[in-house]
């Protein structure tokens, strides 16, 4: 019942083990938990994915909507990323509009995709200055066992990769008919690390997340470009540590990308 106190006890164990070079769940410092992806699980969504990263579960749905372009980019579509930390996912999550944790999560995932220019927004223009496609990415946490960031990023990319653009007729969306697939220029993925008493750990599980003195996430693409970064929580990283994280992110995200492609039947 008292989550906080129980976790306090766990934290001691996490640190104790790390000092002996071990993680609480027996993984190597740079090892992801097992990843399982179910692409296109939802029929009403235009694209979707159900991701299990260890016991952490996240679902994501993509929907296309019609809207007006921003005045400063009249010939470009738009992207909207929203994340909900459902009370289903944890005894400490509450009902209500997204809190600061959910907002940060959504914005970090958003930046990784947006800045990589994964989506060609010019192709989402229907009528310049009048009508464009808005890509809604909605992420829902189903079970929080740590590292919702990477699970969400994997879910969002997979959902985009199987997303289909609805068919338009006389300016209206024709339900259940599609004009084609959304094509992605880049495949950005977040890779998240936790720092715990001078150890850097990839893909922190919940006990490790509770122990952390800093979180660092980096979004990278398949051609080894960095497209977003986020340092979160109280704590500080040394430059050398950050550099190591980036190198690891390039390497580890490549394996994740392969799993994603397999899930949508490519490769």
């Amino acid at each position, binding site marked *: 019942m008292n989550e906080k106190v129980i976790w306090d006890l766990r934290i001691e164990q996490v640190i104790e083990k790390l000092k002996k070079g071990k993680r609480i769940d027996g993984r190597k410092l740079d090892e992801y938990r097992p990843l399982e992806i179910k692409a296109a699980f*939802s029929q*009403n969504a235009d694209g979707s994915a159900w991701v299990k990263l260890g016991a952490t579960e996240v679902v994501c749905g993509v929907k296309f909507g019609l809207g007006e372009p921003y005045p400063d980019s009249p010939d470009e579509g738009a992207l909207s990323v929203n994340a909900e930390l459902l009370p289903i*996912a944890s005894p400490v999550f509450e009902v209500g509009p997204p809190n600061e944790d959910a907002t940060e999560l959504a914005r970090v995932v958003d930046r990784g995709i947006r800045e990589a220019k994964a989506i060609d927004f010019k192709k989402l223009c229907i009528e310049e200055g009048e009508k464009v496609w808005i890509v809604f990415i909605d992420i829902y946490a189903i079970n929080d066992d740590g590292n919702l960031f990477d699970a969400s990023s994997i879910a969002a990319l997979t959902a985009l990769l199987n997303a289909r653009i609805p068919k338009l007729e006389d300016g209206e969306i024709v339900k259940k008919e599609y004009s084609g697939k959304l094509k992605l220029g880049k495949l950005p993925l977040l890779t998240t690390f936790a720092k715990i008493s001078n150890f850097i750990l990839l893909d922190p599980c919940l006990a490790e997340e509770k122990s952390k003195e800093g979180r660092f996430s980096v979004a990278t693409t398949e051609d080894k470009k960095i497209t977003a970064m986020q340092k979160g929580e109280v704590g500080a990283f040394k430059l050398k540590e950050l550099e190591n994280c980036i190198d690891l992110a390039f390497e580890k995200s490549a394996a994740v990308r392969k799993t994603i492609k397999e899930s949508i039947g490519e490769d």
Partner: protein
Amino acid sequence: MLVSKAKRPDGRKADELREIKIEAGVLNRADGSCYLEWGQNKVVVAVYGPREALPKHIQNPNKALVNYIYRMATFSVPERKNPKPGRREIEISKVCGEALESAIFVERFPNTTIDIFVEILDSNAGTRVAALTAAAVALADAGIPMRDLVSAVSVGRANGEIIVDLTKEEEDAEDAVDIPMAIMPNTQEFVLLQMDGIMSKEEWSKAIAMGQKACQQIYKLQREALRKRYLAAEKE
């Protein structure tokens, strides 16, 4: 009872349910949980509690509160839904929570709350009854004492036929009537009953009888899901 032989748009018979799959105990952070697929409908339910009701002023010294929250994911419907809960979700949450409370021994847990969270991930009509069916399994999975399980189905009329388990296409028929219902399967008592549309008492009775029969089928699936989860315990 005469059941029409006419086939429905998806090829089902009048009294035939869509395929239903139920899995109990799917989430490791909740006290009880359930994942259910009912045709295209996909539902996850988590139960927490009984746990201390907070803030303290909401506590009832005579019983546990039952807090049922039904929500639909934005992408679970053809047109993207606003993430903010609508009036429909709020009403469904209220009546379904009351339906479940009828089956729970709430008086044994004063000052506590039993929280039931439902998320609809994909939908095609009948989500509230799918959710209620899943929630009853999740409550049992949480070890919460109950008089009976709750089994739910929607019945009604489309294209002149009395049918069970309407799809969206059937709900959109000119003469459509939708009756979501939930019963305690062992006592046959109704804990949820709603209706949209116009029909005669005779038609209504016929629909309800079909619903009662369907609930027994659903009850069997719920029971199997719970037994399957704990089968090892039988051999202890």
